[in-house]
């Protein structure tokens, strides 16, 4: 049985190599071209479009921020409702969780294509696309954090006569909110990286310029754009990492 599986695997691999035309002979000319392009990348130059680039970079950051905030705001109630600790025997938990699994398994770029078709070109489609992926992941992570929260504070609030709301607010939220905020920040970082590529399918941000520059072989502008992206991604990473460590310290 095992041997059969290996055989099937080997056969499929061979097919894959053949299908993508993988051949060492192809990589050498490619490498040569890459070397030539690298030489043309320097010095980086905005081609008189520096401000335009900066503004679309801001748009990219805006897309990432809006998507993260919306995802977090929506994931909060969904995550709570998804936990048995908040709503025992809730009939909708199963469809809710499966729906989340589904929306998470579709890549942001694919969502972006769908939304560009649905709501037209531009940053709004980008926001929706990133939000779809993050919403489900955040809600799921949040649900699990609530599931695994310790029963102690809940008992303490119940024993004093607290109602359902008060139990959630004081028994559960203080335990899970810091982790939730940290996760949201982590998604902000990852969204900034994702948002830079969304422009490729017309969903707004710096990616749009990058695609144009690549199409017309403006290599100096390409390197300038990449440098700007690198700088902003690094800045957001730093900021968010700092905020997360602050959260950890505070909790």
């Amino acid at each position, binding site marked *: 049985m095992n041997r059969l599986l290996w055989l099937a695997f080997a056969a499929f691999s061979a097919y894959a190599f053949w299908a993508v035309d993988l051949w060492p002979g192809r990589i050498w000319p490619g490498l040569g071209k890459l070397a030539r392009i690298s030489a043309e990348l320097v010095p980086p130059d905005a081609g008189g479009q520096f401000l335009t680039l900066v503004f679309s970079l801001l748009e990219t950051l805006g897309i990432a921020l809006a998507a993260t905030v919306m995802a977090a705001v929506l994931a909060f109630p969904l995550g709570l409702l998804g936990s048995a600790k908040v709503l025992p025997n809730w009939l909708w938990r199963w469809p809710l969780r499966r729906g989340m699994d589904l929306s998470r398994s579709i890549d942001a770029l694919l969502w972006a294509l769908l939304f560009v078709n649905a709501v037209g070109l531009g940053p709004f489609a980008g926001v929706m696309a990133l939000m779809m992926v993050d919403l489900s992941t955040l809600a799921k992570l949040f649900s699990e954090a609530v599931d695994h929260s310790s029963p*102690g*504070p809940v*008992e*303490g*609030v*119940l*024993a*004093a*006569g*607290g*109602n359902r*709301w*008060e139990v959630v*607010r*004081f*028994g559960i939220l*203080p*335990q899970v909110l*810091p982790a939730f905020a940290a996760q949201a920040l982590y998604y902000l970082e990852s969204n900034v990286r994702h948002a830079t590529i969304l422009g490729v399918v017309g969903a707004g941000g710096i990616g749009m310029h990058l695609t144009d520059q690549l199409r017309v072989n403006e290599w100096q502008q390409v390197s300038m754009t990449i440098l700007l992206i690198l700088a902003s991604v690094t800045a957001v990473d730093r900021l968010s990492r700092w905020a997360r460590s602050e959260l950890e310290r505070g*909790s």
Partner: protein
Amino acid sequence: MAHRALTIDGLRKAYGGKTVLDGVSFEVPAGQMVGIVGRSGAGKSTLLRCINRLVEADAGAIGWDGLDVRALQGGALLDWRARCGMIFQQFQLVDRMDALTNVLLGSVRRRRTLPLLFRVFPAADRAKALELLQQLDLGPQAGQTVKTLSGGQQQRVAIAKVLMQGVEVLLADEPVSSLDPENTRIVMDQLRHLQRTGGVTVLCNLHNLEVARSYCDRVLGLSQGRLVFDGSPQELTAGREESIYAGAR
């Protein structure tokens, strides 16, 4: 009113076929301090949790001052829990919040939910809570996160909370089992004080018989879900002690 008492009558509870409380009956006149002893697994915690309905008993009756506790529903059940406080071995406080907020949570049933959810408490409540913390020598710790307090300090916060709650009955589930002798003395003195000056009826699970002897008016012995001893600390002789803790496992 003439005869205020906590009455437990034929209380039964089983977990998946395993009997934990096997027809427990006793009556505690208001204002008494009762120690409940018994080996681990005897059902002491389950008994207390049935009384404030954190656990639902299978059969039997629980009464307090004309109240049929097992029949309470909705708001009336929450009212009962507010009148009947509980402190725990592991404190069960909101340990990521400060001591003052935890004490204020004792007033949860008397105040409206919405402001509470935003941690908005009446100024008078805040003053009262601070005063209670000061009485328990915790004034300087009022703003400190509970998690960073020592065990003895946390248990005193829990006591301030039930004082804020204004309880008539106090259920204490091994309140001193994780404390050193010094803190054990402080906490037990507080419970005694609550009972003597506040007229609070105290039911206190204890695994240290010496503590039960020196602080309680009366001792109940539980073994395998049955009441096997009910008497004064003096009556709890070495022989009787053995019979409580013997019992085949």
